[in-house]
């Protein structure tokens, strides 16, 4: 039992040995538990965390093993100790534990020793001083918390995910090895990874399948979609949400060439669409990254089911935030899928929402532009500031828009009041990394309509349509101003990208961030956890913050 490891490489075993050898066998408290007290004192002082941690690990590791049987036997053998003292327990551990290190995998069946484990563990846990946090729970849950503690020691970074797995009730079948060893821990942790993938992606952005911004987009987009479907405003053009700022001239980029199969009624729209899409046909195939397509394919399918207007609505609305890339992709995916059934869907759309189709060709152009940048948008690179791009894109889009109305006037006539020249800049999200060209049209306005609806909701009073329109205009001006400010701030700092510092400066000017209230406080107060993790670095650690090593 004597491990004579060099002092420079202390193993838990050696440390334990040392402690046991040097500990005063008499406690100050009671003669009976003299050793326990001494042990306690020693353990608490001499070794501090490391030893106790290792002790903990050893205790758990060993306790899980079949050796627990042996230990209890040993315990009984030490008849002179009527109760289990930490010293005795540790001695038993050393006696019974194999020489192998903790890191060696051991194949011990957990459920079998579990009941035996529980007993000694209970006794041990009664000795709280040793910080043996062996669970006093049923065997089914014994493993998880037990694993947790060593996990905490060995793999701190993974604790949060493990905790999630625990919370979700790790299937016991996946813990057959039941080893408390680190390696088995790892394996069991790996097993836990297998089951809940989502929490992982939430906790560990590095493991997320897609950039976190996308996730945020989903929520917002979904809500907006819900709202918009309920109102079913057909206005929104399909475009918008373009990740790229540069409006490629003539919108060559990215479309499938829609089969120009004019059908009665849908002819004009389709022809216009077909023309554009054909020109940009090859571009799309080249540029569209598989990833967004796949990701968005599912959504696109749904959208198709709902008919065109809905999609356009959602995409238009989403124009506001990072939703853009997502919706852009959705539109693109949808367009792809519509290759065959264009006419059919459009016919449906006509029946449902005529004007939406009118918007569509315009949307096409913008979408095409955007699509080229789809890949970059998803890469979440720090895109250019919104202001300039918006302006340029706006310039481009009206031209295209104007070309189409000729063919689509019949459908668009009632659209005109809405698109009546919006005052310039499109809504630009404060933290937009890649903002595409935003036409001052319905789609952009549709994005504001979301806020207008919020406004009318909170007003708790019926509101006139004129009032709502005014509100929309005010919002438009406000956001425009906001984005201009952000752009100017970024330029003032000699940058071309809008960064959180610029936003903080803006909020400071608004009086939201003061000397008493910092940005982080606001983030914590108002944003959901996913955003908070993005914004506040320490939130990454999932509530287990250790001093930097």
């Amino acid at each position: 039992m004597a491990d004579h490891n060099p002092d420079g490489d202390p193993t838990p075993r050696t440390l334990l040995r040392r402690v046991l050898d040097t500990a005063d066998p008499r406690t100050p408290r009671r003669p009976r538990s003299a050793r326990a007290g001494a042990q306690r004192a020693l353990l608490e002082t001499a070794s501090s965390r490391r030893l106790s941690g290792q002790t903990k690990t050893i205790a758990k590791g060993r306790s899980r093993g079949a050796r627990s049987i042996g230990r209890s036997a040993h315990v009984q053998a030490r008849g002179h100790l009527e109760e289990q003292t930490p010293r005795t327990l540790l001695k038993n551990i050393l006696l019974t534990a194999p020489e192998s290190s903790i890191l060696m995998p051991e194949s011990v069946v957990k459920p079998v020793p579990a009941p035996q484990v529980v007993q000694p563990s209970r006794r041990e846990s009664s000795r709280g001083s040793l910080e043996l946090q062996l669970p006093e729970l049923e065997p089914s849950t014994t493993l998880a918390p037990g694993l947790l503690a060593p996990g905490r020691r060995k793999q701190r970074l993974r604790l949060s995910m493990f905790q999630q797995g625990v919370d979700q009730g790790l299937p016991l079948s996946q813990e057959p090895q039941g080893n408390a060893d680190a390696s088995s821990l790892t394996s069991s942790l790996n097993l836990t990874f297998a089951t809940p993938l989502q929490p992982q992606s939430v906790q560990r952005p590095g493991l997320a399948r897609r950039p976190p911004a996308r996730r945020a987009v989903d929520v917002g987009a979904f809500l907006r979609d819900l709202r918009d479907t309920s109102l079913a405003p057909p206005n929104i053009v399909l475009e918008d949400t373009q990740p790229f700022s540069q409006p490629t001239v003539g919108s060559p980029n990215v479309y499938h060439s829609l089969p120009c199969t004019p059908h009665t009624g849908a002819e004009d729209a389709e022809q216009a669409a077909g023309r554009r899409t054909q020109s940009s046909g090859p571009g799309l195939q080249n540029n569209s990254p598989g990833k967004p397509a796949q990701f968005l394919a599912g959504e696109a399918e749904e959208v198709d089911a709902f008919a065109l207007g809905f999609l356009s609505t959602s995409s238009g609305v989403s124009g506001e935030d990072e939703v853009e890339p997502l919706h852009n992709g959705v539109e693109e995916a949808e367009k792809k899928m519509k290759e065959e059934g264009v006419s059919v869907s459009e016919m449906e759309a006509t029946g449902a929402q005529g004007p939406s189709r009118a918007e569509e060709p315009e949307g096409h152009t913008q979408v095409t532009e955007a699509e080229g940048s789809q890949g970059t948008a998803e890469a979440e690179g720090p895109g250019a500031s919104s202001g300039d791009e918006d302006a340029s894109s706006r310039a481009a889009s009206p031209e295209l828009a104007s070309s189409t109305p000729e063919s689509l006037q019949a459908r668009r006539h009632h659209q005109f009041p809405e698109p009546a020249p919006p005052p310039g800049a499109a809504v630009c999200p404060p933290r937009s990394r890649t903002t595409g060209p935003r036409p001052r049209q319905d789609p952009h306005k549709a994005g504001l309509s979301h806020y207008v609806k919020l406004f009318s909701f909170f007003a708790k009073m019926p509101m006139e349509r004129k009032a709502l329109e005014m509100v929309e205009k005010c919002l438009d001006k406000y956001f425009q101003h906001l984005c201009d400010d952000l752009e100017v701030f970024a330029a003032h700092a000699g940058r071309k990208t809008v960064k959180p510092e610029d936003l903080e400066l803006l909020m400071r000017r608004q009086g939201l961030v003061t000397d008493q209230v910092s940005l982080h406080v606001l983030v914590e107060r108002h944003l959901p956890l996913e955003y908070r993790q993005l914004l506040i670095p320490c939130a990454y650690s999932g509530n287990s913050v250790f001093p930097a090593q």
Partner: protein
Amino acid sequence: MEEEAETEEQQRFSYQQRLKAAVHYTVGCLCEEVALDKEMQFSKQTIAAISELTFRQCENFAKDLEMFARHAKRTTINTEDVKLLARRSNSLLKYITDKSEEIAQINLERKAQKKKKSEDGGKNSREPAEAGVVESEN
């Protein structure tokens, strides 16, 4: 200690009051000019309101300027900061831009002059001034 803080507080307060009085006086003078110009009288309350407003706005400006300078990672407030501050009102921005260009020009001329003079002679008295000008320019 508390007394010191108090007296300091009082001093600051009285200083503030003096400043406010100065602002009030200036506002009064300006209002008189405008009144003569437009042939419309200003009531006392109006002048008081305007001066109070001006004072508070000056506070805001100062804080904003400091924030802008810090945002640009500088410790000195620059003409750029002032321009950023004035961007809201177009006419004011234009005015300030013109003025700043004027000042820049004046500095350049002064620099040229000083270079000439230093070439001729008498460097000592000029150099510190020159350095100051250069720094303010930069």
